[in-house]
């Protein structure tokens, strides 16, 4: 499973990066390919390219605020989750996602 994800919280200093780390760790543990873009206080970091969106199976938006460049994800299968959920439950989110996607196929 190839995943792209965007994290963004109101202040853009704490949760954004905690969620990014949690998703990356969970993906590494479960053997998924993930790229997590952070939209923090300084702007976009680790930006997801159009090609990466094209290649991805799923888009995860762990965002509490409006994000920039959202139009990249139009038409892709997308899940919206509260950012705290990404921080706390990254493992279980990815597992449930994989399950749901396999049912869709």
């Amino acid at each position, binding site marked *: 499973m190839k995943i792209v994800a965007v994290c963004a*919280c*109101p*202040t*853009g*200093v*704490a*949760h954004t990066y*905690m969620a990014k780390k949690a998703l990356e760790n969970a993906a590494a543990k479960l053997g998924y390919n993930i790229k997590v873009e952070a939209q923090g*206080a300084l702007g976009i970091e680790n930006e997801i390219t159009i090609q990466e969106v094209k290649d991805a199976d*799923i888009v995860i938006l762990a*965002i*509490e*605020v*409006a994000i920039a460049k*959202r139009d990249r994800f139009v*038409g*892709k*299968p*997308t*899940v*919206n*989750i509260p950012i*705290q*959920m990404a*921080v*706390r*439950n990254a493992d*279980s*989110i990815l597992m*449930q*996602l994989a399950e*749901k*996607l396999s049912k*869709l196929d």
Partner: protein
Amino acid sequence: MRKIQKALMTGVSYMLPFIVLAGMTIALTGIVSTYFGVKIDFITKLNGFGWTVMGFIPPIFGAYVAYSLADKAGIAPGFIGGWIAANPILEGTKASGFLGALIAGILVGYLVNWLKKMPIPTVLESLKPTLIIPLVSGWIIFVLMAYPVGFFVGGIYTAIINFLLTLAAHPSSAILLGAILSAMCAFDMGGPLGKIAITFIFAVWADPSGLGFMANAAVFPGIMVPAISVGLASYIAPKKFTESERKSAPGAIITGLVGITEATLPYAFRDPIRVIGCNIIGSAVGGALMMAFKLATSGVSGVIGIPAANNPLLFTLAIAIGVAISTTLLVLTKKEASETISSEDSVNFDITF
């Protein structure tokens, strides 16, 4: 509701750097010019610059509330609506501050989304994003903010000032007046109600009874208690505040000490009823104590104004009691911050295309 919540947080997110820059600039320049007693032109200019930046807060807030709801097309009209909220245009209207900017941002968000969907002749389709949406949304938000919102706020303004003047006419209601003035400042944290309280003070400033200086003393708790209390409470009960709230605590306490209430806004937005409620109670008690002790001052700007009080010790005590009450109430009533949800919480989400 979640959309509005997200819009609010987006507005806060983009407004924060302005609050920090404006708050800290005004605070530090105030301290320098008061305690070093020298008039340095650069410091005066820097202070003026701080207030200019403060004036950017409502337009930026309005712009990004609208951006969250309507994307890029919302920014310009949202900015304009927020600017009118801070700078009333017509005779008889008053500034509605960030509350007005919030209304403007939400109105613009829905208006622009509606305009985007509005069917128009195909030949005009390319003109829609470049010409029609900016023009129509800009005009509509100008009319709404300048007229109905402006006059509504202006009307409330006059009514409240008149009410306060009636209270002020009877010495027996002085304590109540102190509590109300202070609570008004605590309620909207640098917004229109607080401005009404300040306007009232200037209206009675030269009153032979000395009421002006007493009313001025009474608003000190309302201005200082909220930011100091949320900052202190996040040290005492760290679990009840989010990590970013804890990180902002030192800044909130400093800005609160120098009389910039706006630092409370991010805390209030996340948990409005408890934060504003607790702050109002502590501030009202502080304001009532000011009147009860017959305290008066001609100073402004938080701790910088304390030496100007007729009894600096009791004056400080009244503020400290307000802070103690608000902080205690915050610690008692606030719930654990949501980031501490347990990992057993089930994950429920849908895939959308």
